[in-house]
């Protein structure tokens, strides 16, 4: 039997702000098979991003287990999590999160260098090729501030797939781009899944993206359930 690539069991996460407690996750279970595309929809503040952070090793659950690609994320040291992210994960954020002082090419090359691609010239060459594949060859030497939102998100996707990850975690990947760019970005993610078999976990408040997913789940008040279209 093949183990799931993502296996979250009973994940609980509570944030404390002064005397207030915010229950972001209340015992969430999520199992994903390799190559699956899962969309998690739901309103803002429902706990979607928290779930993504736990799976990505950016935060730790208060209770429950998180296993990704065979790594016990909840129990790993910070150093192990760095290596885990390098080897297994790619991230795409709503606000692109490109490094402003680096060109598009160097943003992608940095991910490759972190993955152990050296020397720097090799990492840059591979980054150029990747950007060219995604139709950004002419924009490779531009800094993020010189690119449109859609272009920045495509650079972020190039960066996410540069290290050939097992899983891509996308947090509102279309939340900050226009409709035309949204179609382009989703088509790109579909293509990555088809060609490379990358597992995709996309969280969004936009339920119209459901057509791109194998499964759609809904996160409301820290609880995950199958999404029922209304």
């Amino acid at each position: 039997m093949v183990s799931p690539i993502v296996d979250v069991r009973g994940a609980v996460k509570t944030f404390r702000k002064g005397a207030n407690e915010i229950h972001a996750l209340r015992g969430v279970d999520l199992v994903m098979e390799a190559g699956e595309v899962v969309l998690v929809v739901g309103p803002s503040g429902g706990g979607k991003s928290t779930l993504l952070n736990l799976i990505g090793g950016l935060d730790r659950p208060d209770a429950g287990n998180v296993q990704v690609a065979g790594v016990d994320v909840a129990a790993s040291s910070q150093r192990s999590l760095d290596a885990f992210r390098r080897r297994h994960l790619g991230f795409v954020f709503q606000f692109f999160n490109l490094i402003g002082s680096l060109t598009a090419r160097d943003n992608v090359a940095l991910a490759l260098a972190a993955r152990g691609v050296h020397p720097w010239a090799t990492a840059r060459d591979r980054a150029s090729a990747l950007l060219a594949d995604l139709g950004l060859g002419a924009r490779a030497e531009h800094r993020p501030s010189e690119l449109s939102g859609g272009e920045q998100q495509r650079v972020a996707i190039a960066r996410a797939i540069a290290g050939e990850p097992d899983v891509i975690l996308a947090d509102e990947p279309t939340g900050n781009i226009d409709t035309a760019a949204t179609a382009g970005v989703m088509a790109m993610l579909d293509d990555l899944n088809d060609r490379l078999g990358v597992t995709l976990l996309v969280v969004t408040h936009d339920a119209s993206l459901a057509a791109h997913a194998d499964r759609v789940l809904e996160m409301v008040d820290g609880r995950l359930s199958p999404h029922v279209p209304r």
Partner: protein
Amino acid sequence: MTLLRLVLADLRAGRFRSIVAAAAIAPIVFAHLVLVAVAGSLAEAPTGGGRALVIVSSNPLDPSTGRLDQVTLDRLLAAGGPGVESAAPLIFRPVKIGDTIFQLRAARLSEWEGVESLRLLDGRYPDPNADEIAVTEGVADTAGWRVGDTIEVFSTTFDVTAVVRAPGTKFASLWMDFDRADALFETGGTFQSATLQLTPDSDPEAIRLAIAAAAEGRFGVYYEDEINQLQGAGLSAASDLSVLGTAIGIAVLAFGSFNLTAVALAERSSDLGIARVLGVSRRALTLFASVRSAVLSLGGFVIGATATAVYLATRPTVTLRSFVVTPRLDWGDVALGVAVTATATLVGAWLAAWRAGARPPRELVEAR
């Protein structure tokens, strides 16, 4: 190499800020290196010898303020008794030649070697009846004067006829015959100090105390060795303190570097977080911040060292009260300065970056 390229790319992206950060380090490096050069030249100066006594101004650190005349000297010598074999008067004047102040000393030619411990290195001693002058090797080195050159002193042109070696605080000075200087400066027979040779069987301490008592505090009476050490030590101590001050200043750069890096990282918490998300380790990020800081401090050091080299090239001598010293900067001093600066900034940057990297990646990313 990848790290260095990323650092350079990062510094280029914030070019103006990088230049300002490097330039902030330069002045303290400049001050430190200049003072090290001055202190170094004092440490190099050889000291004189002998058991002769010297009568000088009551402020031995500034002998140019003394004013002795033959009558006063005779009275003091009489107080010293028969143990005083001879007395050699010395005129001591700071003189400005071009933009530089030099120490001019004038003694009777017959006393240059026996009393003043000068040694002829090149040329011949000046003719007391001609406008001729000698320079020490310290002056020859820095001013570039050689035998056969002419220099203008007190509106009179003198031929340089000799390069001499002089001990102690005389290391960098001009030398003239006593009578020629007396005429040139119209001193009316006054002079600034006198060196006393004692008979072999005399008690120098008893003579010193007797003359000091007769001087009634208007003049100081010292052993020649002692005054050399006193003058050298006074200057060295002042200079060493200054060097220490600037060295501490450089060490304080560690705090500056800490703050600079902490602010830079705080402004770019999100970038740090993104790097962590990509799997860049805390250690690698700390190394990045430290190398970035080291490159900036190295830039500042290069600017400071270049300014020092230009300054020392245009001002070959430095006047400390009545003493003229020839600052010399050697590679050891520069290397030490580089090491201290780099260490200070590395420590500061390392601490700041290590602390910044302790925040969870999620917090860092959300700091945008």
